[in-house]
């Protein structure tokens, strides 16, 4: 039983991580209509900036600030210099340009930091494990990730649903032309939303640093999962991104954790392992296909 609980926590933690990335991606796509393949690069920028700052100063707080600032600034500059020119263009042009950005970011990071992955230490205060229940010991750092993710979700919910900026964002997601016709400076809104998305990606990146490998191309690994989340949740919807991320995190983790074990009841060990691994790899894509069949606009579409 504790194993199931632990795996659910793992799924939650993974889902929260995906949410931080998916929130920015879905906002950018929903509001500006831009497919930003370079979103993963912002995640990488956040991770590298934090790793660099942590190595130079040894302070986790400074690393946190550096990671967030670097990702947000990179995002804003990216919007001003490249993406602004792409809003009116075809999706294919956007894909091409943002793919080029991926290559540019990866190469720049290679030039600046080299090809060797960086080491990032866990902040001492969050190192170690706590006993949540008898027999259930869980790393503090992962609990912290869950807490931060849920707080960000709450903050975004309040921002989007309770503030004037949020109202404009919602309006921009559903009736872009109308918002512009009403005299809102949509360009500023776009830049702000892009910066926010970049900030969240950077936050995900810097939190991932101590548990994953900080290396060139780390963003692309997680980007595909993020797109799956956005599609399942519904493009442009923060609520969709949140629930989509949790569903993907939980389904993926549970399949990986339990599919081989359950299959072992009906078939021999090695076959069950192979089939289970296959199922776990397909799981979320299968889920995406089913969601697309039943609800083509995702579970919580922004454009109703």
């Amino acid at each position: 039983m504790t194993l199931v609980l632990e795996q659910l926590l793992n799924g939650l933690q993974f889902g929260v991580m995906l949410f931080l990335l998916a929130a920015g991606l879905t906002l950018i796509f929903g509001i500006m209509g831009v497919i930003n393949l370079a979103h993963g690069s912002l995640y990488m920028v956040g991770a590298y900036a934090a790793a660099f700052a942590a190595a130079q100063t040894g302070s986790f707080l400074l690393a946190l600030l550096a990671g967030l600032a670097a990702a947000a600034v990179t995002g804003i500059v990216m919007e001003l210099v490249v993406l602004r020119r792409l809003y009116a263009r075809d999706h294919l042009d956007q894909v091409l340009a943002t793919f080029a950005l991926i290559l540019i970011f990866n190469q720049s990071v290679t030039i600046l930091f080299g090809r060797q992955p960086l080491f990032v230490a866990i902040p001492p205060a969050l190192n170690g494990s706590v006993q949540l229940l008898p027999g259930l010991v869980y790393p503090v750092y992962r609990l912290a990730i869950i807490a931060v993710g849920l707080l960000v979700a709450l903050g975004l919910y309040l921002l989007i649903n309770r503030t004037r900026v949020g109202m404009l964002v919602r309006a921009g997601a559903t009736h872009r032309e109308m918002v512009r016709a009403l005299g809102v400076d949509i360009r500023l809104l776009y830049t702000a939303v892009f910066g926010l998305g970049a900030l969240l990606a950077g936050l995900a990146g810097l939190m991932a640093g101590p548990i994953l490998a900080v290396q060139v191309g780390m963003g692309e690994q997680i980007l595909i999962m993020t797109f799956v989340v956005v599609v399942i949740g519904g493009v442009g919807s923060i609520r969709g991104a949140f629930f989509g991320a949790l569903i993907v995190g939980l389904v993926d983790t549970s399949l990986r954790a339990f599919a081989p074990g359950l299959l072992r009841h009906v078939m021999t060990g090695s076959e069950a392992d192979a089939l289970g691994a296959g199922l776990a790899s397909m799981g979320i894509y299968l889920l995406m296909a089913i969601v697309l069949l039943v609800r083509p606009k995702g579970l919580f579409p922004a454009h109703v």
Partner: protein
Amino acid sequence: MQHRKSVCLGLMLAAAVAWPALAQQPVKIGMITTLSGPGGYIGQDIRDAFKLAIDMEGGKLGGVPVELMVEDDALKPGQGKQIAEKMLKTDGIKIMTGIVFSNVAGATVPDIVDSGALYVSPNAAPSNFAGKECNENYFVIAWQNDSLHESAGQYATNLGYKKAFILAPNYQAGKDALTGFKRLFKGEIAGEVYTRLDQTDFAPEMAQIRAANPDVVFQFHPGGLGIAFLRQYQQAGLLGKIPMVLAEPSLDATTLKAVGEAALGLEVTSHWNTDFDNAANKKFMEAWTKAYNRVPTFYASQSYDSALAIASALKATGGKADLPALRKALAKADFQSVRGTFKFGPNQHPVQDWYSLKVEKGADGTPVLKTTGKVLSNHGDVYAKDCKL
């Protein structure tokens, strides 16, 4: 003035064109390797080590001037194949090396060896090229893939572990890894898990390991995957509780640096280590440290050995692109390997010794790999018997 200048230029051009006829044309060596993406540091070490060998001879290998052409395959089999085609057809290259990953090798090597060029592998050596499909133009300097994991299985047995939990990514090399480990591990398998190649979070696997409570964990996760795995192993509180035996690709010098103290106490099996006490290795380590000032990975050592092997063949033929003579000279393995002894088996893959290493605190407090003993002697591979050369 202008006129005289152009005459001068013309003369220089003429001299440049005539030059190759007088001096020896450098032998071109093609290197296809992975320089971009998370695996890029491996290709970098392979390239740098090969260059080092050339530089140490002053632009020559075996006394023959050589020119190294390096291209990045970006870990894409299709791209590797294209580069090979260009090098073979446009550049007329007859000696190639460099491929890091088995899937790129799988797509690229057959084209190279079938078109009458030599391929000297500094790393990838998938099982299918070691058995029935072995080729007289294909030489492997590193190891046959399985040996890496066989040595780990043997070492886990030597250490007296009875119950192993084994994990690897769900792709060909991952499956080969688990098969290789099981081949020489005498105990029981408590659990066998295939992870995903794009997986970054291993928390579910950690929980499974804890639940299975094995004597030992064996895992094969090269590069960044391995860094994430080991750090999460420590964070899950498993490090120090359940010992781990690894093959070297899961913990090379570069990943060791990124893993940090989470690697202390791990048992690794390898065919080479920085502290090997032989003249060739000392020469290599000194030159490497002077040139690059970082700890070389075992990939670097393999590439350096590949360069020395090619040098021995070029020396024998005097730089002539005489394929049968080159092959014959290469097969003798007449070079001083940084591993100490080195020879080829019947399928032109190495027959060599395997050693155990342990991660310990070095002089400056950072973890280093220390050689602790020998695991296997004169170890070849099981596929050699299917090879008819």
